[in-house]
């Protein structure tokens, strides 16, 4: 029964009743309601418990400023920590209060109020230290907290993130924003208008004002209709602009997209100009027990009666220090609420305010010093500011207004500066840092007429168009005398500055006493302003409290930095469609499908390529599979897909000397048809990549890189060419995906390639190691390269991707009589370790150089300079102890050493002298073998070293880092 629903009025649709549940109990509301308005209509007053002290709380605001009632939505639209005032009511909705158990009415956590004195601001810095904070932390976090994230994705629909561009982005569809959008739209600009409420109108929805001699909402409807008719205007409601980033890049969270399959959409808008018509937010007053259910912002109560046709209570006391609360009181009175009194802290109430109050008793120079009732307001104690004449007025609702703060959050996020305005007693936008302008209440222009005017002016200036004729508007005036806290004698009880984070005046005083006297320090020490609501109602009261306590002007205290998001945003909306299979990028080769069809275990193996790790058969274990694949390569023939290797074609007169500069060894001496293995270093002499350079012609070269570092090498080369050698004639073209390759390797590799049919001579004389030849293989245009990563005779058959699948299938078919096996990354890893070939990320760990790896021969002494040369020489000149590559044979050959395990002297708890970089089961040695980086390793062959594990040590003999074919005869064969 909606006992507090007015019989008429409001922006709700009484023909569309909606059923919903709150804390397990069923209620009814109407379309157009928020969860908060529906709860108030049903006379639900106790809706939450506070964050820290578990104090009873009710609904205090009517929009995103709501600091008290956070709910967890259940079921279809499960989401957590939503302000009840921003949740649009839907049929069948289920919600429950956060941070209370079993209910807000009977909350066991409320026991914390008994020892509230022990847990002031920053208590966790000083208490619960013995025997250790971690002992208490879980319980404290459970007790003080919010709802967790939903444990499952949305049951229907999905999220979307989308880019947009606009000449003018207007934030807010209140009077100033609508006027700005109208002028911009008429000027032909591409306009993006976004407003956080369900319908346009902003504060006009909550108040009873007139424009052009008629109801303001008629003007709103006409304006919206005109905007809708403009193809150059994008108008979104229920869409919050929540972040303002560099270069006028803003984020807009649309919660009710027209496409019903989309739950939320996040717009990423790049705007030429931004008009910030974000309005103003009423702040509360600071008095004892100002958090009791029934204590509400005056503007919120006004919104409930006018917009939602809900009486938030039956009898109200209004407490204010400014004029705006008078209109709220008058609206409530007109809606049947008994307004017992207006307690105004000002000594003199302006005449126009008194006129609005009409018959409502006005108590000038008065303050509220206390609230009666714990779970619901039952009365307010009012006295003079000096504490005299205290009396208690019975009421079920205490409405308060401490003045209005322009919503400067986005302006501040854009790095615009703020200044304190004495007449408004608040901070207003000052210098803009980006192409934006604040208009209307967001700029401190609090009257309706000035909102319309500043909205139009801003766009007229931006677009160079003439000011339109402005409609007349209800005259309003606003005056305020700041009251930062009630400190009248007799005022006792906790006075909250930040309702959401339970930060009191005493907390701020404590922070100041303990030396945290900068506003940013106070914020962090007390957590004031750091809740979901970002201190929308309380921040400036904290600043005012600091100013009062320190005896300095507010301008000198300054404001804290506002950060995104302005209001909470679903992670899903930020991620958009990037979920499930597309959370991370992935790359396929033309053979990927074949791999999957043949049971390959796939995983990412560098640069987002999904590659086959191994091809299990039947009941094989992982190790059995890898052993089988390794034996195929060592004893017969195997083939792997080497397509992901980075490939770049370089063209130009200066390519030779350029490659000499980027590689450590000499490349310019290569003849066409020759390849050479080389290292690239970073400027600090560390290994950037290893790869192969091939000379295709006089001025054409092909550089092959590791898979993982292809993009890095590309960037490295381009940077050098664009910054150091802009005059050199070198062009780099990425051809990684123009060439795929199937590498046939093993003693029978030559026979398989020959069986495929080729016009390329395959004999060692015709195509020796480190040579390549162009021709045809299996009837396909191909380039065959004699390089080897396995230590075996290898033919890397490169073809265009359009031919790769055919080539692969032909190889597998032709290779059957030879016992060919597809080989995954795991076997490749074993084979390269047996051969002692390095791997970036294993042996090349960001500390070693070529000398450490026993590859000093690759550091050319003939060249005057190359990237990294000087750094290597300087580093080695220090004669510091180096970790050098060695081979390890575990003394017990059946013991595997974990990769990355540390080596310590004697296996004792002493500083590490190295680490194991790789350990594999060698099919040729029939035992575990490892590679390691060991201090002075090259001079320690024959020693026994020790791997230190958590609960064991492993002894291993040091040897040369090569376990197979040390002179390379097989791969050169």
């Amino acid at each position: 029964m909606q006992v507090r629903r007015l019989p008429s009025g409001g922006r709700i649709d009484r023909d569309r009743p909606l059923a919903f549940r709150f804390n397990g109990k069923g209620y009814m509301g109407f379309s157009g309601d928020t969860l908060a308005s529906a709860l108030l209509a049903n006379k639900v007053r106790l809706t939450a418990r506070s964050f820290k002290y578990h104090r009873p709380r009710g609904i205090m605001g009517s929009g995103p400023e709501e600091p008290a009632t956070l709910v967890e939505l259940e079921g279809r639209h499960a989401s957590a920590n939503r302000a009840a005032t921003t949740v649009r009511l839907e049929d069948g909705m289920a919600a429950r209060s956060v941070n209370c158990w079993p209910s807000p009415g009977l909350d066991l956590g409320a026991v914390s109020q008994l020892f509230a004195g022990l847990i002031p601001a920053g208590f966790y810095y000083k208490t619960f230290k013995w025997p250790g904070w971690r002992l208490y932390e879980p319980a404290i976090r459970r007790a003080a907290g919010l709802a967790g994230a939903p444990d499952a994705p949305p049951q229907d629909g999905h999220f979307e993130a989308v880019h947009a561009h606009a000449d003018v982005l207007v934030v807010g569809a209140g009077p100033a924003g609508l006027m700005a959008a109208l002028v911009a739209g008429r000027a032909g600009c591409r306009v993006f208008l976004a407003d956080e409420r369900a319908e346009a109108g902003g504060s006009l929805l909550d108040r009873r004002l007139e424009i052009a001699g008629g109801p303001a909402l008629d003007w709103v409807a006409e304006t919206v209709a005109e905007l809708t008719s403009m193809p150059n205007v994008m108008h979104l409601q229920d869409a919050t602009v929540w972040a303002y980033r560099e270069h006028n890049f803003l984020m807009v969270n649309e919660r009710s997209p027209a496409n019903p399959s989309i739950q939320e959409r996040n717009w990423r808008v790049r705007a030429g100009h931004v008009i910030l018509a974000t309005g103003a937010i009423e702040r509360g007053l600071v008095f004892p027990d100002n958090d009791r259910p029934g204590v509400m912002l005056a503007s919120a109560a006004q919104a409930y009666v006018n917009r939602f046709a809900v009486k938030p209570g039956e009898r109200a006391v209004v407490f204010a220090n400014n004029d705006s609360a008078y209109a709220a009181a008058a609206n409530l009175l007109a809606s049947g609420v008994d307004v017992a009194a207006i307690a105004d802290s000002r000594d003199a109430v302006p005449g126009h305010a008194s006129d609005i109050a009409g018959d409502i008793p006005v108590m000038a120079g008065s303050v509220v010093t206390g609230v009666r009732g714990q779970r619901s307001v039952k009365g307010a104690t009012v006295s003079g500011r000096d504490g005299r004449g205290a009396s208690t007025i019975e009421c079920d609702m205490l409405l308060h207004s401490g003045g209005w703060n322009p919503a400067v959050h986005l302006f501040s996020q854009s790095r615009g500066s703020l200044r304190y305005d004495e007449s408004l007693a608040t901070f207003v936008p000052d210098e803009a840092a980006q192409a934006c302008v604040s208009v209307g209440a967001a700029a401190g222009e609090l009257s309706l007429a000035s909102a319309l005017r500043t909205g139009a002016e801003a766009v007229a200036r931006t677009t160079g168009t003439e000011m339109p004729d402005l409609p007349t508007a209800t005259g309003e005036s606003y005056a305020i005398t700041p009251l930062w806290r009630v400190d009248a004698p007799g005022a006792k009880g906790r006075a909250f500055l930040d309702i959401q984070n339970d930060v009191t005046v005493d907390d701020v005083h404590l922070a100041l006493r303990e030396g945290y006297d900068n506003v940013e320090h106070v914020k962090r020490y007390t957590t004031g302003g750091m809740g979901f609501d970002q201190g929308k109602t309380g921040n400036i009261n904290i600043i005012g409290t600091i100013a009062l306590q320190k005896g300095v002007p507010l301008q000198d205290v300054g404001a804290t930095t506002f950060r995104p998001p302005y209001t909470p945003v679903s992670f899903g909306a930020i991620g958009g469609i990037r979920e499930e299979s597309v959370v991370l990028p992935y790359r396929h080769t033309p053979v990927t499908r074949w791999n999957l069809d043949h049971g390959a275990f796939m995983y990412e193996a560098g640069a987002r390529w999904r590659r086959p790790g191994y091809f299990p058969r039947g009941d094989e274990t992982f190790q059995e599979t890898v052993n089988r694949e390794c034996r195929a390569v060592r004893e017969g023939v195997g083939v792997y897909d080497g397509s992901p290797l980075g490939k770049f074609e370089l063209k130009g007169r200066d390519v030779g000397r350029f490659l000499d500069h980027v590689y450590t060894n000499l490349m310019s001496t290569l003849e066409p048809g020759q390849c050479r293995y080389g290292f690239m270093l970073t400027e600090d002499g560390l290994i950037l990549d290893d790869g192969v350079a091939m000379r295709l012609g006089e001025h054409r070269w092909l550089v092959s890189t590791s898979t993982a570092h292809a993009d890095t090498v590309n960037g490295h080369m381009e940077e050098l060419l664009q910054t150091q050698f802009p005059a050199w004639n070198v062009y780099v073209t990425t051809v990684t995906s123009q060439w795929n390759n199937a590498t046939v390797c093993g003693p029978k590799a030559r026979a398989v390639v020959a069986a495929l049919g080729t016009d390329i001579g395959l004999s060692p004389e015709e195509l020796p190691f480190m040579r390549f030849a162009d021709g045809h293989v299996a009837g396909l245009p191909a380039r065959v390269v004699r390089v080897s990563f396995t230590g075996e005779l290898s033919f890397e058959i490169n073809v265009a991707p359009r031919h790769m699948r055919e080539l692969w299938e032909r190889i597998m078919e032709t290779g059957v009589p030879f016992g060919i096996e597809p080989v995954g990354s795991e076997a490749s890893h074993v084979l390269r370790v047996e051969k002692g070939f390095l791997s970036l990320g294993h042996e090349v760990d960001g500390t070693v150089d070529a000398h450490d790896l026993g590859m000093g021969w690759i550091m050319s002494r003939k060249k005057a300079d190359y990237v990294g040369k000087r750094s290597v020489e300087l580093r080695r000149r220090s004669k510091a102890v180096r970790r050098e590559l060695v081979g390890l044979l575990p003394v017990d050959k059946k013991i595997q050493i974990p990769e990355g395990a540390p080596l310590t002297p004697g296996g004792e708890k002493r500083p590490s002298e190295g680490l194991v970089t790789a350990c594999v089961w060698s099919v040729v040695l029939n035992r575990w073998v490892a590679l390691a980086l060991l201090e002075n390793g090259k001079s320690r062959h024959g020693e026994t070293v020790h791997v230190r594990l958590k609960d064991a040590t492993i002894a291993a003999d040091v040897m040369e880092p090569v376990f197979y074919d040390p002179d390379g005869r097989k791969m050169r064969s």
Partner: protein
Amino acid sequence: MGYDASFERLPINACFDLKGSESALGEWMGAELLPGFPTEANRCCKADGLSLDHVGPCRWLLQADIDREAELNAALRPHAAPAEASIVRISDTMTTFRVAGADAAHVLAIGCPLDLHDTAFPEDAVSFTEFFGHKALVRRCAGGFDVSVEQSFGDMTEDCLARALR
């Protein structure tokens, strides 16, 4: 209900990456081969089934149907071009998706940060940009857009597009 748009993966085009000065390339290839160099960056010139896209400083892409690849390769003679002209066949490097329909621009905008409004991206516009986080070449086509991504990202892009169209 999804969007009023659809996508398809197109067959590969003949595509040659041209780098060098206009004069060096023009001199080597001959004016009669090319449809003419676009006068602005990120614009294309089309003629006789060829499209020459200006995609970067001293960089163009020459595209045609794949059945003309051999013909173009013979005419361009990449292997014999002078040092000042880089001509590389890259027909296989990109996979192209055609996104068409009334909501094509919105679907594109889900993955692409480029301003594709016709005032900013006219009929002859062509540009490298991003599509679902990867480098992509975008151009207009009848009723929509053609988006080319690096071939190895083709399956993922298809996955993303299918999700975007829901």
